[in-house]
C-alpha cells in the first residue's frame, strides 16, 4: 500500500537493525512515549530486531490508559442520565470504571454512541435540541485541537446542549515527571511523532538540555521506529543529548500553528491526574473560563466522584519504565484484557494489553 509498504520493507528493516547492532557497545534504556509506537513494536515484532543491550520501555502515551478511573466513573454517571446522548471514541467504551463500563451503560438503556470526530457530536447536538450531548474528550495534544474546534464552533453557533468531559493530557510534563523521579532508568526518548506534528518540538529542547537525554521525534511505522532507535542509540554512544527529528515527512519544528492557536483560544493548562502515575502539575488542558459552560464535569456536577485503584496493580511502575508487564504477579492471572485491574491492561495500546495479546507465551521455545 502506498505510503505504508515503503515503511514496512523487511530488507530496509534488516539494514537498520544491522546498523543498530554495529554501533551499540553498551546497555541503553530507551522509552517510546506513545502507545501507538508500543502497539507497532509488538505488532511487527520490532524488538526482535534490536540487540539485547538496547532495552525499549513503554511510556505513558496511551490516552485510554492514563485517563483516571474517576473520570471513567464520571463519564458513566453522565451517560446514565436519561436526557444525555453520550458520545465517545470507540476504545473508551470498554474501559472499566469502578463498577461498570460504558458498554454496560448502553446495555442498561443509556444512549451511548461511538463517533469518529467531536464535530459529529456537535452535529448530534444540533439535531437533538431536547437532549444534552456530551463528548468524552480524551487524549493528548493530538486529539485536543479537534475538541477545541468543536467547543469553539458550539460557542459560535450558540449550541447550548453540547459539552465535553475533558481529560486532556500533555506529553512534555509526563517526560519531565519520569526524568525527575529519583529512580529513573530512561536514558533516551522516542517522542510521539503525531503530538509533535501538532505542537512542534521546541518544547523538548529544555528537557534534553536539563536532563541530558537525547529525544528523537519518531513516527509509527516499523522503519520509523527502527530509525528513531538508531538515531537515539547513536547519540547515546556519542554522548550527545540533542532533540532530533526522524519524522520529517510530517513534523516541522514549529508544529501546526493554526491548531496551536485553536488550543490556546479554548483551553488553558492545568494540573491533571494520570492513571497509574498521579497528579502532574501543568500536565493537561482544561476549558478556559469563557468556555466553561461547555464543561460537562461542571454542567452535570460530577466533580465529587472519586475512585480507588486496585492495590495489586503495578501499572504506574510500568508506565514509568520501572517494570515490565511480565514482572507483575497479576499479569495474565487476575488481570487480563477481559478483566483489567489497571491502566496498562485496559487499552489495546497499553503495554500490558499489548504484551498479553502478542506475547502471551514466549516464542523462543
Amino acid at each position: 500500500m502506498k505510503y505504508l509498504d515503503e515503511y514496512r520493507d523487511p530488507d530496509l528493516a534488516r539494514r537498520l537493525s544491522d546498523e543498530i547492532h554495529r554501533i551499540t557497545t553498551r546497555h541503553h534504556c530507551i522509552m517510546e512515549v506513545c502507545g501507538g509506537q508500543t502497539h507497532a513494536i509488538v505488532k511487527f515484532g520490532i524488538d526482535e530486531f534490536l540487540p539485547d543491550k538496547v532495552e525499549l520501555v513503554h511510556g505513558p502515551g496511551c490516552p485510554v490508559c492514563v485517563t483516571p478511573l474517576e473520570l471513567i466513573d464520571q463519564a458513566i454517571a453522565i451517560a446514565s442520565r436519561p436526557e444525555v446522548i453520550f458520545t465517545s471514541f470507540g476504545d473508551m467504551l470498554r474501559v472499566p470504571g469502578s463498577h461498570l463500563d460504558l458498554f454496560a451503560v448502553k446495555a442498561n438503556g443509556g444512549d451511548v454512541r461511538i463517533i469518529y470526530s467531536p464535530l459529529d457530536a456537535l452535529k448530534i447536538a444540533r439535531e437533538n435540541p431536547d437532549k444534552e450531548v456530551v463528548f468524552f474528550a480524551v487524549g493528548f495534544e493530538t486529539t485536543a485541537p479537534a475538541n477545541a474546534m468543536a467547543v469553539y464552533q458550539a460557542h459560535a453557533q450558540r449550541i447550548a446542549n453540547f459539552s465535553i468531559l475533558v481529560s486532556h493530557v500533555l506529553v512534555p510534563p509526563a517526560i519531565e515527571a519520569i526524568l525527575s523521579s529519583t529512580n529513573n532508568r530512561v536514558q533516551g526518548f522516542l517522542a510521539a511523532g503525531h503530538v509533535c506534528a501538532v505542537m512542534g518540538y521546541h518544547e523538548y529542547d529544555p528537557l534534553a538540555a536539563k536532563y541530558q537525554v537525547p529525544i528523537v521525534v519518531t513516527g509509527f511505522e516499523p522503519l520509523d521506529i527502527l530509525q528513531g532507535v538508531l538515531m537515539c542509540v547513536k547519540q547515546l554512544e556519542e554522548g550527545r543529548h540533542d532533540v532530533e527529528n526522524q519524522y520529517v515527512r510530517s513534523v516541522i519544528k514549529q508544529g501546526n500553528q493554526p491548531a496551536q492557536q485553536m488550543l490556546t483560544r479554548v483551553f488553558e493548562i492545568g494540573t491533571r491526574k494520570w492513571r497509574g502515575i498521579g497528579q502532574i502539575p501543568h500536565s493537561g488542558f482544561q476549558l478556559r473560563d469563557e468556555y466553561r459552560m461547555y464543561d460537562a464535569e461542571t454542567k452535570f456536577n460530577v466533580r465529587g466522584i472519586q475512585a480507588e485503584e486496585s492495590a495489586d496493580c503495578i501499572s504506574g511502575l510500568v508506565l514509568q519504565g520501572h517494570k515490565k508487564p511480565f514482572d507483575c504477579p497479576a499479569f495474565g492471572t487476575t488481570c487480563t484484557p477481559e478483566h483489567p485491574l489497571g491502566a496498562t491492561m485496559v487499552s489495546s495500546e497499553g503495554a500490558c494489553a499489548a504484551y498479553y495479546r502478542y506475547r502471551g507465551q514466549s516464542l523462543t521455545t
Partner: protein
Amino acid sequence: MTTEFNPTCPLPITQHTQVQLAHGSGGKLMHQLIDQIFAHLYEDTRHAPGHDSAVLNVSSDNLAYTTDSYVVNPLIFPGGDIGQLAVNGTVNDLAMAGARAHSLSLGLILEEGLDMPTLWTVCESIRRSADAARIQIVTGDTKVVDRGKGDGIFINTSGIGTIDHPLTIAPSSVRAGDAIIVNGDLARHGMAVMAMREGLEFESAITSDTCPLGDVVMELIDADIEVHCLRDLTRGGLSSALNEIASSTRLSMEIDEARIPVREDVASACELLGLDPLYVANEGRFVAFVPGDQAERALAIMQDHPGFGSANFIGRVTEQHPSLVILKSRIGANRILDLLAGDQLPRIC
C-alpha cells in the same frame, strides 16, 4: 429454473407501504403477504406455504445440518443485503462440512413499520441467492414484532446438505504439514458494513464479499483434493478461525502476513480506523487445509474460480508451537496472533 422477477414490489403500496402487526396475525393481510411476496420464494409447489412441514426426499447416508441467525444494520449495504447473507451464510456452513446444499428453511422476524419495498428487495435477494447456490427453500415462517422491538428484519435459516464423498472434513483431520489456503482478499464485508453504518466515506466504494462457497468446495473435492478441513472466515475473521482450529487440534498455524491478500483500499480503511483486517468479518471467504503436496493444485482450482483470483497460500500447519497461531509480520518477525478480548474498536489515535 430461475423465474422472471418483476423488479417492483407487487403489493398495492398505496394501501400498505409498511409492514403492520396484522401482517403476522394469521388473517387476510398475512395471506396477502404470503401470496404476493413469500410464495415466490418456493419454487416447488410441494413446498409452498400452507403446509405445516416440508417433506423431503434425500438419498444420502450422511447429512449435514446447520442453523444460523442474521442481524445486520444496515439491512442493505454495498455489495449485498441481509437476505443474501442469510442464504449464503447457511449454504457456506454446509459447504465447510463438504456438504452439497439441499434444502433451506427461512424464518423471518419483521419489525412493524418496515418499508414494504425493503422487504421485497430482501426477499428477491433471498430467492436469487438460493438460485445461485442451487438450494431450495422448503419451509418458512414469518412473525411481526412491535415497532422498536426489532431491527427491521431478523432472519434465521437452517440448511440440510448431503455428503457424497468419503472425506472427513473437520479440524480432527488437520495434520502437521498441511498447507493453509485462503480463497481471496480479506476484510471487505466488515469494512463495507462499517463504512455504511458509520457514514464513513472512502475514495473507492468497498463492497461486501458475500457469495456462496459450495461450488468451489465441490470443485476441490471432485478434483480429488484430499481436503482436511474448511472454515469460513465470518465473525472474528481469519484470526479467530485459525485460533479455533489451532486450539482444537493442538497444532500450530504458521502464517505469513505478506502472503495474506487484502485489497489496498480495504487495508487503507483499516489503517485509518486502527482496525486489523485479520480480525474483520468476511462473508465469502474461507481457509482450506490440504496436504502440502496438493497445495498448488488446490490453489490453482480456487484461483480459476470466478471471484477468487486473489486466493493465496498463506501458511502451513506445524507442531512447533502447539495451539498457537504464529504470524510472520511484514518486516519478518514472528508474533502470536491471538483472539480478541471483545469487538475490535476504532482507536483514539
